[in-house]
C-alpha cells in the first residue's frame, strides 16, 4: 500500500512507477562496476544466500544473525517510494521489506546508542568492482537513531514483488526515500550501534560534496549538480525537486532547528 504521505505529495501526484527494466538496469552499485549498466551484468552470478548479518556495538546481544533471525516473522511492508539520486535523476520504485524500526526493536540496542551504522559485504572475489580502489571499501552508511526509527525507513528485501535483484542490493538494503540514493546502502552484512556519528563512505571520499545527512534538498546545491530539478527516468522535461523528496510531512520535524546548509 502506498503511504498516505506518498499519495498526498501535491506536485508529485503524477508519480508513475518506473519500469522494472529501468530500475534494474540503471544502477549505482560500484561494487559491481562504476557504469550504470555494469551492476546488472557483473552481479548476475552473485549468490546472496545464505546470508548473515553481524550485529555489533551498543546492543543487548552482539552476534551474527542469519537472514531469517534478523527479519523472520516481521510484518512485510509494500512501499512505493520516490528515489532521488544526487546526480539529479529519480525513479519511483515499489519496494517490499520490513520497517527498520521493527528490526531495531528486535535487536534491542542500549539506550546509549545514538547512531546505527551499516556495512556492505567486502568480498572482491564476489564483488569485482572492489578490486579497484574507486571508493574506500567496504561501503558504509549510517543513520541517526531517530532517522532509523522513522516509519518511512525500510530494510528492503524485494522490489516489484520479487526478491531484490543482485544489482539492486540483494539480499538486503536500506531505503530512506527522503535522502539521496547513496544513503541506501546495499547488500548489508553488518549493523553496528554506536554513540558517535559514524564515518560514511561518500562523505569520506569527498566531504565537500556528500554529507552525513544527505537529505534531498533543492535549496542546497551540490558543487557538481544543480539540485533544484531532476529528471524522472523515462520523462523528458525535468521536474522540480521537492524538499525532503516530498516526504517533509513525515521527516522535517527530525531536523527542526538544524542548519541544513551546514548539515547537508
Amino acid at each position: 500500500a502506498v503511504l498516505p504521505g506518498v499519495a498526498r505529495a501535491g506536485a508529485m501526484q503524477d508519480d508513475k512507477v518506473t519500469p522494472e527494466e529501468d530500475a534494474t538496469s540503471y544502477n549505482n552499485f560500484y561494487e559491481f562496476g562504476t557504469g550504470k549498466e555494469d551492476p546488472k551484468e557483473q552481479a548476475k552470478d552473485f549468490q546472496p544466500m545464505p546470508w548473515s548479518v553481524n550485529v555489533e556495538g551498543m546492543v543487548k546481544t552482539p552476534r551474527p544473525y542469519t537472514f531469517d533471525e534478523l527479519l523472520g516473522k516481521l510484518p512485510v511492508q509494500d512501499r512505493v517510494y520516490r528515489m532521488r539520486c544526487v546526480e539529479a535523476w529519480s525513479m519511483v520504485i515499489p519496494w517490499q521489506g520490513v520497517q527498520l524500526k521493527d528490526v531495531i526493536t528486535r535487536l534491542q540496542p542500549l539506550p546509549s546508542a545514538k547512531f546505527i551504522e551499516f556495512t556492505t559485504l567486502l568480498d572482491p572475489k564476489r564483488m569485482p568492482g572492489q578490486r579497484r580502489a574507486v571508493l574506500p571499501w567496504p561501503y558504509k552508511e549510517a543513520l541517526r537513531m531517530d532517522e532509523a526509527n522513522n516509519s518511512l525507513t525500510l530494510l528492503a528485501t524485494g522490489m516489484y514483488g520479487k526478491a531484490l535483484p543482485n544489482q539492486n542490493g540483494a539480499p538486503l538494503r536500506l531505503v530512506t526515500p527522503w535522502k539521496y540514493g547513496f544513503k541506501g546502502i546495499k547488500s548489508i552484512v553488518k549493523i553496528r550501534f554506536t554513540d558517535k556519528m559514524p564515518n560514511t563512505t561518500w562523505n569520506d571520499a569527498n566531504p565537500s560534496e556528500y554529507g552525513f545527512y544527505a537529505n534531498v534538498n533543492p535549496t542546497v546545491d551540490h558543487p557538481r549538480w544543480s539540485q533544484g530539478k531532476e529528471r524522472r527516468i523515462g520523462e523528458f522535461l525535468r521536474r522540480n525537486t521537492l524538499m525532503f523528496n516530498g516526504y517533509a510531512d513525515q521527516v522535517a520535524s527530525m531536523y527542526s532547528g538544524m542548519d541544513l546548509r551546514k548539515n547537508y
Partner: protein
Amino acid sequence: MKSRFPALEAPVRRWVRPALWLLVVLPVPMLVAQLLLNQLGADPIDKLERLSGLWALRFLAASLAVTPLMRLTGWGWLVAQRRFLGLAAFFWALGHLSVYTVLDWFFDWAEIGKDIVKHLYITLGMLAFVLMIPLALTSTKASIRRLGGVRWNRLHALVYVSAIAACFHFVWAVKKDITQPIFYGTVVAVLLAFRVVWRIDRRSSSRSVSGDTQSKPVG
C-alpha cells in the same frame, strides 16, 4: 620537410580523407539508431550527452596529434587534416552543447545560466567550446591567407587552451571513477608536451643558428 615513409605516403594520402569523413560522420547514424532502438539505457539523454562529448574530445585530441605526426612522417599535406579534425571536434562539441541545451535542459536558460556560473566543470566546458568558435570560423584557406600564417597560427594556439579546458571539464564531470578522463587527459598532455619540447628546442638552437623559424606553421 623530407618524406620519411615514401611507400606509405601515396595510399595514405589517397584514403585519409574518406576514412576521416567516415569516422567523423558514422557515430551520428549509430547514435540515432541506438536511440530509436532503445539501446541507450534508462537515461538516454545522459548517455547522448556523454557520448557526444567523448567524440568531441576524441577529435580534438586527434587534431592535436596531426602536427607531431607531420614531424614524424615529413608529410606536409597532413596539415589539411588538422583543420578537418579541428572542425570535426567543433561540430561534435556543438552537438554536445545542443544535447545539453535542448534535451537535457530544454532551453531552461535560468537553470543553464546557474549551471554555468555555479559549476566549474560546466564553466570549463563552455570555455572550451567558445574558444573553438573563432577557430572554426577561420578554418578556411581564405582565412589563412587573409590573416597571414603567423597571425593565424597565433590565433589557433587557442586550441591548446580549449583542449586543456575540455580535459578538466571531463575530469570534474565524473563523480568518482576518473579512469576515462585521465586517459584522455594523458593523451592531450603528451600531445601538448611535444609543443613545449619543440619550443625549448627551437629556442636553444636559434641561439646558435640565426634563422627565422617563427613564420613556419607550428601547430
